[in-house]
């Protein structure tokens, strides 16, 4: 319990740090958001007026202090250009992103675990080598290339899936597979070594000696033990996914927070950039926390410290 509390406090401090650094970066940036809002034709007086209205004429620490005060109350500020609450904007986009990430994790596990299990069972043979090479390719392929390739083959040429957009299951498949492919290589390798280790264990030999078939031993005895430590890593993935969604969502026109962030960056809509960065950081911190808390539940030899 002490451990959990300490980790929670630590996570909160990390988020505070992330908010501070992002704020500093956006404060010193050469692009002036007020100019963007006011438009080119605005007079100097109008520009100064808007600046004062947004509180952007205040010194840095006061601006940051105000932001933090709002943050504590769950207020992420208002978008400069869309005139909407950032919390509301992110809230309306978040379900799409969460759906995509969940589907991405499923795709990643299906691809990665299958590859890893097959490689472990055929260890040292041609299939194993081909799969391990594939795992290297998947982690070396940038997501925009993968997404364009999938789009070209499965949407343009074969016409199985729509070219982009949101709404049905068919829309979800290609972006989810794109997200899943990157991580599948890591899972394939982790799964392979976990499986090989388990297959060497004494209780597997015992099970075989009892006369159980190889298939039964693999499915009932080896697999559950090998798979757990690998699945426990899912939390750590969230960080990787958070990076990927900006690219994947913009290629597939998926209306999530990645697309929101990308549009905001292009228009220097600082409150949105701040908001999405914080939400992403929160997801990453929670993911790591989850991974750390789950590990000892699965393997009691790992102690919390």
């Amino acid at each position, binding site marked *: 319990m002490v451990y959990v509390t300490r980790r929670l406090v*630590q996570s909160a401090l*990390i*988020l505070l*740090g*992330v908010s501070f*650094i992002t704020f500093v*970066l*956006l404060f010193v*940036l*050469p*692009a002036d958001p007020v100019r963007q809002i006011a438009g080119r034709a605005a007079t100097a007086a109008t520009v100064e007026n808007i600046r004062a209205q947004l509180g952007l004429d205040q010194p840095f620490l006061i601006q940051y202090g105000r932001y933090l005060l709002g943050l504590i109350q769950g207020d992420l500020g208002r978008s400069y250009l869309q005139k909407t609450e950032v919390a509301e904007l992110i809230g309306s986009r978040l379900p799409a992103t969460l759906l995509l990430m969940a589907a991405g994790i499923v795709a990643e596990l299906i691809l990665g675990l299958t590859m890893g299990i097959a490689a472990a069972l055929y*260890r*040292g043979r041609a299939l194993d080598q081909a799969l391990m*090479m594939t795992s*290297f*390719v998947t*982690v*070396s*392929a*940038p*997501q*925009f*290339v993968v997404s*364009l*390739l999938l789009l*070209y083959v499965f949407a*343009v040429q074969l016409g199985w899936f729509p070219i982009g957009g949101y709404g049905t299951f068919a829309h979800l498949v290609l972006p989810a597979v794109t997200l899943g492919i990157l991580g599948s290589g890591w899972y394939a390798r982790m799964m392979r*070594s976990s499986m*090989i280790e388990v297959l060497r264990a004494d209780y597997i030999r015992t099970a075989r000696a009892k006369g159980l078939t190889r298939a039964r031993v693999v499915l009932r005895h080896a697999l559950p033990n090998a798979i757990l430590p690998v699945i426990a890593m899912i939390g750590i993935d969230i*960080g990787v996914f*958070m*990076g*990927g969604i*900006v*690219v994947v969502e*913009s290629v597939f026109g998926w209306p999530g927070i990645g697309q929101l*962030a*990308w549009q905001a*960056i*292009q228009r*220097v809509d600082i409150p949105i*950039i701040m908001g*999405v*960065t914080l939400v*992403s*950081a929160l997801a*990453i*911190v929670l993911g*790591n926390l989850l991974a750390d808390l789950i590990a000892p539940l699965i393997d009691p030899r790992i102690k919390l410290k």
Partner: protein
Amino acid sequence: MAEPSALRRLMARKMAVFGMVVIALVVVASALAPWIAPYAPEEQLFDGLTLEGAPLPPGGAFVMGTDLLGRDLFTRLLYGAQTSLIIGVLANGIALLIGTLVGIVAGFYRGWLGGLLMRFTDLMMAFPALLLAICLSAIFRPSLWIVALVIALVNWVQTARVIYTETTSLATRDFIAAERTLGAGNARILFRHILPHLVPTIIVWGTLGISTTVLLEATLSFLGVGVQPPTPSWGNIIFENQTYFQAAPWLVFIPGAAIIALALAFNLVGDALRDVLDPTQRGRD
């Protein structure tokens, strides 16, 4: 360290050799680009487009076809290799330097500065790296050097963590304590005993890091916030031509394949180096 045998063990790995061959090819091709390239990289060729103004597919006078502006894709690819390699080596070099410094200071000298550095590293781990990089380069209207710097600022974190862990475990080993009782100072211990032991780790992470860097540069350039046209980069070739990719897929997939090949090559070599240089990995599959 047994250098020659490490090299021999590296050469015994087919995948590592394949990686090294790819890297060598890209290095040679980019170095010789001005002599190999059939055209100038920014030259819009008169016969580079069809009469309707569409780009030409691979074959004929243009080995890899032409792009939307009628420029030779093969030529742009060769010059793009320069961009990838310059950024790969430069950005990763800076990241490696920062990471190693932070890791050593935090792991060896500890104290308040070390603590502060590691807390900062933890904090950077929670940053969505790609988002940060996109933000920074979108803000700064990047040149080649800014892109390299942005990537370095995002990518040093992993190295710092690994070097920190290595250094802390080294610093508590008996031979360091023995050295201290013999009266060795911090500097001597650091340069004679700690640094040499960190070299394999630095080599491994330096190689793997180039792969990450190449991918990040390509992604930033694809989004239009990386290396700016007309300077060719494999990422911005795709960025410039993606609107037309259904009709002219070669403009996306040839540079795409180049990016994957180069990143893959550094990953394969880095992974093999880890097995070869790290004694604890020896004998494992």
